[in-house]
């Protein structure tokens, strides 16, 4: 087996036109766009603040002073609330609550939703059933549904996590299913079938890795939603309960006392804005990088 043409074919250099896509390298690229870099920087600062809150503000979020409803000053950058607590401290602790919520609800929702969606690739009937279940969830306006969950389970941190998890299921589930269905028609999946590769192997080895990208982008987008749902519930007083602060409940108090102290809601709002904006910018640049093959 050594005719000259084949030898020469070997000698011809393989084209190296793109960077190696070995999965992580491509996600890394998302953080190197200008937008991605800004978003990452802001997010890192926020996360660091949240993590270090007990160190920076060693007294916790409940230190009261006689100086209630004080406007922003050198001592209290965001001012103080009705009990004279520093609003900057409370905002940072609120951020801590929100980040924890996102870190719990988004991955759990993503994993459960994706598994339910992918299940259709193995058990078609169950998959169809799941789609109808997702339809029901989507059938309700998402915020109303979140309210119902919280009302049934009681207003606290856990039910907020549960509500957000449920709301995320249809998005992840449908995305996973459509991705899996698309991949199933791909020639390399058919090639694996002609080799006799089992369904389970095909799913884990060929389908899942190739549907992961949109799911990861969606997770970043959903994180923004989670923050908004939390603050919405908090604003109505149905989220995380006092004395534990969350960005939403701070806004709720702020709106209630806006007559006494006009700057009350501004601080928490600013933090919320920074969080939502950085997450959304990150998801954008992820989307841009990852969905371009």
């Amino acid at each position, binding site marked *: 087996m050594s005719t000259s043409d084949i030898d020469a074919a070997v000698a011809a250099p393989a084209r190296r036109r793109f960077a190696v896509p070995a999965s992580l390298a491509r996600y890394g690229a998302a953080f190197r766009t200008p937008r991605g870099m800004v978003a990452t920087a802001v997010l890192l600062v926020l996360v660091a603040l949240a993590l270090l809150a007990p160190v920076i503000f060693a007294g916790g979020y409940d230190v009261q002073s006689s100086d209630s409803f004080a406007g922003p000053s050198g001592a209290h950058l965001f001012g103080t609330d009705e009990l004279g607590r520093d609003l900057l401290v409370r905002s940072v602790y609120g951020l801590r609550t929100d980040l924890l919520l996102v870190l719990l609800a988004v991955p759990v929702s993503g994993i459960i939703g994706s598994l339910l969606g992918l299940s259709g690739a193995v058990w078609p009937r169950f998959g169809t059933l799941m789609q109808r279940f997702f339809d029901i969830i989507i059938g309700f306006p998402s915020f109303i549904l979140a309210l119902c969950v919280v009302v049934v389970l009681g207003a606290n941190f856990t039910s907020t996590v549960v509500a957000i998890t449920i709301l995320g299921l249809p998005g992840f589930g449908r995305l996973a299913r459509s991705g899996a269905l698309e991949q199933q028609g791909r020639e390399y999946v058919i090639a694996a079938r002609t080799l006799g590769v089992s369904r389970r192997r095909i799913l884990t080895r060929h389908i899942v890795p*190739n549907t992961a990208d949109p799911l990861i982008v969606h997770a970043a987008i959903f994180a923004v939603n989670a923050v908004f749902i939390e603050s919405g519930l908090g604003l109505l007083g149905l989220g995380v309960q006092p004395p534990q602060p969350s960005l939403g409940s701070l806004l709720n108090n702020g709106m209630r006392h806006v007559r006494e102290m006009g700057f009350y809601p501004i601080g928490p709002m600013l933090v919320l804005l920074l969080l939502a904006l950085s997450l959304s910018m990150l998801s954008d640049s992820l989307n841009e990088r990852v969905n371009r093959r």
Partner: protein
Amino acid sequence: MTAAPDTTVPTTPSTSGTPAGGEPTSTSSLLEVEDLQVSFPTPRGVVKAVNGVSFRLGEGRILGIVGESGSGKSVTARAVMRMLREPGRVDGGRVTLGGRDVLALPEKEMRGIRGEEVAMVFQDPQAALNPVMTVGDQISEALRVHGTPKQQARQRAVELLRQVGIPDVERTVDQYPHEFSGGMRQRVVIAIALANKPKLLIADEPTTALDVTIQAQILELLVDLRDELGVAIVMITHDMGVVAELCDDLVVMYGGRVVETGPVQQVFTEQRHPYTKALLRAVPRADEHGDRLTAIPGAPPNPADLPPGCSFAPRCPVAQDRCRESVPPLEELAPGQRAACFVSADGGELSGERTTTSRTRSARADTDTDTAPVLVVEDLRTNVSRKRSLLGKITPVYAVDGVSLEVRSGETLGLVGESGCGKSTLSRTIVGINEAAAGTITVDGSDVTAMGAEDRRHVAETIQYVFQDPFASLNPRRTIGQSIGEALEMARVSGAEARSRASELMDTVGLNDGHLGRYPHEFSGGQRQRVGIARALAKEPKLLICDEPVSALDVSIQAQIINLLEELREELDLGYLFIAHDLSVVRHLSDRVAVMYLGRIVETGPAAEVYGNPQHPYTVSLLSSTPEPTVDERTRERIVLTGDMPSPANPPSGCPFRTRCPIGPLFQKDREVCETERPALTLTPAGQSAACHFPGELAEGVSA
């Protein structure tokens, strides 16, 4: 780069083949391209896509621009229209169209030139038409932007559609593109291009997406339009057969440069550039069978990474040191014929010594009938419909409708047919991707029609599949080593043994160990197909189903893969079920041939008989429609079929081919038998079987 604009266009009309009336009426050139330079700035550096291209085109002539992917042929054409894709830009040179310098015109005037002076026909008519506008409106729009009043525009649209051969124009003018077939859509695109009576038509691979019988219709139309309207055509193609059939002059491009140019007749008779010569020798031909193809080694150069000297030097059999150092100028080496080659300019021999010996493959079908066939398919039907009626009953659509065939080891059965004839469905049913509705599939002696788990394992061990598009059939996230490893795992080979088997397989298909760690996108098309073959061989099958394995590859690469398949067949005693729409490739590889039409085999038998003396009128027309890369064929009578293949959802009664058959009831009213009775596949005196009530009749009429 010497541009000698006063030498190319021969003033004497080429002697044969050019139909009367098609002769250029004046010697002035309509289009002159001089030293055109086009580049694409990319983040990874500037890619010089076109590097000093010059050619001329006379009025009413057809110029073929031939090249492989990345040769710059399409970019050249787009630059003439000033329609380069972003971020392409013209760096230098002149394009003169009807005496005006196109590159210097302001964009506003250029818009006037597009459509009125020069128009373009694209490869994919589906993408070139707006799906929400009727074809009449789309043609009218082309007219109205150039100032024709509404009423007149509509009249002219009807007239144009009639001119390009659309039937029943009064009705079809108000139809939408999806109501037309592929060939008809391409006619509509041509009608739009012709709307403002341009002097020049640029056709970019206009028939590549079409079937051969439809391609023949479109090529015929283009020649007619040239003869009637005197429109000049620039035909961009990769197919030397199309050039031989259609064009007057030829420009061969390679690596962004013109390597050879001249009148078609002359270039086909004697090539002055080794690339042109090699290209013509690498194409299999329907009228010959035997010699191994002379493949061009390596792959076409990447435009982003061109070699310093002659782009072809790394693959050239006669390259010298100077070829690798400097770029040879395009010089006139024969009257009207120019080539850019140092060796040729010095009068040197262009073809290297032929490395392959001629061989005569005896028809295995005759000698080996005693061995049991690896694959036997009997009366197979495959339903591809999942549409249910109101009562939940499935209305079946049989893409494969009663097919029988068998393949032995070491033997190749070629399966030929146009798109939609069911050949891929058939092969997918054999490996269990589609479900058989009726009939039996027997693999290596055992009936696997039911496709239970045990059957599937048996099939996967005996039969493997080589896909058309090797890129699509490899998981982009897995290295070649992982992909081949998966196949080996299925063959229950693992660990160190798997590693040594993997490198052995790579060696078998002409790749090496180092390639195992790479991802599919790091390979060229030909290399990827080698990987696809290596993976198929991992389970040591007895039979390979090759589903159009070379049709996605560049011409110069096709020959490499075909040769590889031939070598493997001899070494491993493999049987092939070789599926292709390209009759020449099938002829080259096959011992026996089966021609499929609308889910049925209409003719089958030894390749020599089927090709030499076709009995079914469909086979005759297919052969007649296939463009041959030789100019001697120009005079031959061509049978151009009318219409398109009917839908398998609604097949005609009786003979499925009767709606297009040139000897059927369409032309001979007394042949009702074709409408009422389905002809069975029966042995003809010529030696092969054909499903026709009047076998051999058409063949006798046009015997070459």
